[in-house]
Structures are given as C-alpha cells and as structure tokens.
C-alpha cells in the first residue's frame, strides 16, 4: 500500500476517533470562545478598541488553543497503537503525514469557529473579497502548526515530561507561522501586498513537511 494511502487511512481513523471522543469540539472550542469574552467584558462596549485588537486576539488564541489541539493528537498515540502501526507495515512517514492531515482538519474547523466568534463579538470588519486569501492563510497556518506538533510529538515520544517538551518545541518554532498568517491577514485588511508573508507561510509548511517525512523513519528506529 502506498505511503499516501496509508496516510489517508491514518488521518481518517484519527478523525473518526476525534468525532467519537469529541475533545476538540466539546472542550477546547468552548474554552477558546469563552476566552474571547474576557476582553469585551473587561473593556466594556468600546467597539473601536475591539475592532482594532480583534485580529491580534484571534491569532493569539488560535496559537494557544491550536497548540492544545495539535499536541493532543500526538498525545493520543499510545505504545499499543504505535506497535499496531509498526507491525501493520505502516511507513513512519505515512503516520506523520496522516497525523498532520487530521490535525490540519481539526485546527481549520477550530479556527473557523473562532473566526466567526471574533466577527460577532469584536465587530471585526471583513469584505467578501478578502475571504479567499484569509481562508488560505488560516489553512496554511493550521497545516504548519499540525505538522510542527506532530514532529514535536515524534521527537518527544517516550521521554519523561513529554508534554512540556513538545510544547517547548512548538512554541518558538511556530513564530514564522504566526507572523506569516497574522501579517497576511493584516495585509488583506490594509489592501497591502501579502505575497511575501504568504510565501513565508508556504515555505515553513514545506520545510516542516520535508523534515517530518525525512526524520520519521530514523525517529521510529531510535525509539526501539
């Protein structure tokens, strides 16, 4: 079976499991939306201020809660499930790609919900023409964060303090993703050029994919 087919199957099952456990939808999304309420409640009905800080709040909460979602995926990878995949002949690169794909779907759904909540609560201005470019930046950000968290999960697998270590890896390395996505969105709002920031996002995603696929096998071997 090809690597891509195995990756698709890994992603499919991840999403089926998430659909049944519902951790992202039932726990993390409501918490993130509740966190959005903190600033309006603290500042009162200052719409001008809320419009101004809306995008910054979106990307901050997107990163913080997005990290939780993305790292949760790799934390669910039990030793028994790793053995199952190893003995089923699953290519470690396929596992990386599949987990990244399922993480991307979950993060995109999460960011879409967060975005709608920002529009409603912060009165953030948005024109219809900006939606495709904004959607592209959200998906590229989601993919990069999912790939980074999957990679961090693989690197820290089997180590003590795994969760803390994975977060420490993801937080600083996500900087180009946050910068690229936030500046792309800001550029759309100002009618400024977004190509360079979009390319930064795309280049980061490609780099993370290449590194993840390349090290998946050696990391699997090192874990034995």
């Amino acid at each position, binding site marked *: *079976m090809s690597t891509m*087919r*195995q990756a698709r*199957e*890994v992603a499919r*099952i991840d999403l*089926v*499991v998430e659909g*049944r*456990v519902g951790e992202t939808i039932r726990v993390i999304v409501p918490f993130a939306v509740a966190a959005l309420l903190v600033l309006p409640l603290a500042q009162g009905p200052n719409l001008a201020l809320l419009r101004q800080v809306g995008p910054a709040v979106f990307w901050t909460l997107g990163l913080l809660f997005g990290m939780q979602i993305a790292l949760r995926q790799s934390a669910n990878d039990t*030793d*028994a*499930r790793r*053995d*199952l*995949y*190893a*003995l*089923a*002949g*699953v290519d470690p690169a396929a596992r990386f790609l599949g987990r990244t794909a399922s993480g991307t779907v979950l993060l995109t759904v999460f960011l879409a919900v967060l975005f709608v909540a920002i529009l409603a609560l912060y009165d953030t201005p948005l024109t219809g023409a900006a939606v495709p470019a904004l959607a592209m930046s959200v998906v590229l950000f989601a993919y990069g964060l999912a790939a980074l968290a999957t990679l961090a999960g693989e690197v820290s697998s089997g180590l003590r303090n795994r969760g803390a270590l994975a977060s420490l890896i993801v937080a600083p390395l996500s900087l180009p993703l946050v910068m690229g996505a936030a500046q792309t969105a800001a550029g759309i709002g100002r009618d400024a050029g977004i190509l360079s920031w979009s390319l930064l996002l795309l280049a980061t995603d490609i780099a993370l994919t290449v590194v993840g696929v390349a090290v998946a*096998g050696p990391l*699997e*071997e090192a874990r*034995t």
Partner: protein
Amino acid sequence: MQTDGPGVRLAAVQPLVALARVGVTRDGNALLDDVVLDIAPGEVVGVSGPNGSGKTTLLRLIATLIRPDRGTGHVLGARLATPGAFGVRHRIGLVGHEPALVPELTIFENLDHIARLGGLDRDRVMPVLEIVGLAGAARRRIRAASRGMQRRVEIAHMLLRNPDLLLLDEAASGLDADAAGLIEAITTRVTANGGAVVTVSHDPSHLQGCTRVLSISAGRLVSA
C-alpha cells in the same frame, strides 16, 4: 538439542529467528543477557518464566520493536536494529499484554482499519470474525468489549494477516476453552505455512503442545 555457551542454541537450518549473545539494557537494568536462540520454520517455541524475567522483552526484541545493545540478531532474514527490520515487520504478528486495538472503534472497524493499512482483502474481515465467533458483536466498540472478546479480536487480526512469525504473550490467560482452541488453530496454520510461533507464559501448563520449551530467568534464557 545442543548447548552453545551460556544460552541455548538449537541446531536449525535457515532459522526464522537467530539471536547470537544478544543483550538488552534499559536505564541501567539488563533486561536480556547473553540470549542465544535459533528458531526454525515449523517450530512452536514456548518460553516460561516468572513475572519480570524478560519474557515480554524477548518477544518485543523478536518483533523488532526494541533493539539489542549487545550481540547480533536476525529475524526473517533482516538484521535487528537496522532499517531492514522495517521491511519484515508486516510479516510478524504480536498478541501482546495490552491489546493493540483502537478502543474508540468497533470490532469490525478495527479489523477493517488493519486491512486498509496493510493492503489486505477487506472482504475477509467478516468471515474472519465469524471464525472467532464475533460476527454478532462486530458493531460493538472495543472499549465496551470484554478482555476475552478483545483477545478474540486480536486472534482475528492474526488470521487476517497470516504472519510468518507469530508471537504470543500470555495469549491463553483468561481465555475460555473455545478461544484457547482458536490459538491452537492459528498456531497450526502458521507452522503449516512454514512459519514459526513463540509463545510465552508464566504458567508452564499453557505451553503444552510446544515443540520445545525454554525457561527464562533474570533475562537469561536456559533450556527448561
């Protein structure tokens, strides 16, 4: 049987497993020490020993899931601790202590997932479930299945995959007579196809029917 050094070596032609003075140390503890073992096609090797003696470590070593620190080992022609070991994993079946199943999926979905990952014939899933007596419970989630049912699912997994090397870790523990009969049946099937079986148990009565029985104590393998 002929003795060679501190471990046990059986004369065998083109062994499926060949371990030469293999040792495994983790966190300063010698889990396996100076293990010498050849397993020929058609053999059913039983290993008995008390808890913590190294039985599970031995099986995981043969399954290529852990690497030796000392000595050399070959499994199905691939040298342990080399990338070549990846290539034979799909020919190895392991029924371990912890069920290698996805708890959120149903019994059918687990086997279907394995079939999809391994490029196996998905039409065989239901017939295999009928063989192990679980066709009527196919839609039950693993989380809601009894330990005995989970064992049957793992046996069904092995029937689906037809491994050349079957490793059974306390597989008969807690099973009723029907399920124990299924283990005998799959053991016969594997050896009839030129494969081999290694079964470990702390209870020597579970090793009746083995072509030879070894004993393991403090990580050292000796003839029983």
